[in-house]
């Protein structure tokens, strides 16, 4: 069995899943960041007498967090245990690779999954890029439509 190919398939699969998950993870982290900052600031206001060394530090680290550019947030796939157990118990990845029989089929399938994830992700990116209006909220659309004819939406 070609070890390099096996490694390539497994790594590629994990990498493709990571990339696929990234956009939603970034949004989730952004939301969490916002919620935590609000919560900490609220609790500071509630108890003005206490010292806030800890919460200040925490607050600072939350404010510094940059979900879009922080690569450390994207090092693990979110459900690796499940994937590992499926590969081990259902697909019998290790056994098949060790025996060398029927391994081609599963490796081929791993590459198919990688290509699916990559193409799906790229497709969505392209659609978003060519249709920037899709992501706007209704209010934003109305505002821009008004701007086109030189008007402003009343506040």
């Amino acid at each position, binding site marked *: 069995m070609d070890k390099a190919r096996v490694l390539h398939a497994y790594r590629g699969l994990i990498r493709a899943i990571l990339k696929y998950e990234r956009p939603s993870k970034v949004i989730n982290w952004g939301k969490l960041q916002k919620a935590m900052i609000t919560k900490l600031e609220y609790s500071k206001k509630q108890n003005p007498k206490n010292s806030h060394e800890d919460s200040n530090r925490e607050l600072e680290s939350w404010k510094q967090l940059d979900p879009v550019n922080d690569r450390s947030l994207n090092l693990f796939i979110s*459900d690796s245990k499940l994937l590992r157990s499926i590969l081990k118990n*259902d697909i019998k990845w290790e056994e098949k690779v060790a025996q060398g029989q029927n391994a081609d089929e599963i490796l081929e399938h791993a590459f198919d999954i990688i290509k*699916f994830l990559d193409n799906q992700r790229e497709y969505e990116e392209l659609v978003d890029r060519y249709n920037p209006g899709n992501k706007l909220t209704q209010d934003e659309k109305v505002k821009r439509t008004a701007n086109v004819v030189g008007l402003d939406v009343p506040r």
Partner: protein
Amino acid sequence: MLASLKNSYVVIRSIKSRLPRLYSLSAQPLGIDNTIENNSPTETNRLSKTSQKFWEKVSLNRNVKKGKIALQLDGTTIKTPLGNEIIIDDTRSLLAYLLKLEWSSLSNISIKTHSLPLTSLVARSIDLQMINKPDCDPQLVAKIGGNSDVIKNQLLRYLDTDTLLVFSPMNEFEGKLRNAQNKSYLPLIKGMEEFLSKFSFQSNVQLQILDADIHGLRGNQQSDIVKNAATKYMNGLSQWDLSILEKTILTTKSFICGVLLLENKKNSSNLLPNLKTDMESIIRAATLETIFQVEKWGEVEDTHDVDKRDIRRKVYTAAIAAFTQ
């Protein structure tokens, strides 16, 4: 001996505790544990590990006894457009994992129609299974566009003008396209004839091709022998396989590509050598003319680049669903 072992163990542990964790080199937010193995029940941990969406949690509920896996949001099984629960055999656990991934990776609230291709294919096949039960409500059958006999007839029409059966004239692209078509289509057509003849009593199963040099511009039709054989093949398929065949045929505009994908993914070991192929070759065969056009005239933005991904994501969706573990 034992004491020295113990000593060295303590030394190693003390070194370990002093070393910074590799993943904390860049900004490490407080209160969040990025390690996978840690399972302390904090909200932040839960959020970073379970890919919990705003209000919902996607999960798989595996019933080992029944051998089924249900795809669930907040503990309730997701339902198909016709109201059937999305439950699949646990022999397709990898597909179930990908379904979950698809749901947990939705990046905003407004779910677009193209963001869940696997789910829509699985839902379609589950609905097809349901409407083919004899006591089904005719209104539901109408909603899905007819029962599987109607669908089979519609799919048969793709065999008449199959992408792989239409040959371009020799004078286009200096004959390059035609040569590529000959090279890639002819063996597949031959293999397909051999494959279909297994489903026919007659020996002369022959696919009618449409050659632009000989036939010019006109329609094309297959003989009844071919149609009967193809129908017989489709009748032997499960509803699950039929929906995969349908998805592939509609994407590639080719019946032959549909059969190729299904057979290569399902039982490639006892397949005719002529028909053995991989997904990328199927896609290339289905888009051969576009490939030559792009080569000659260049890639058109918002069209060729999008279509290229589109056909791939659809074909690979079908391939993933067709795979048997």
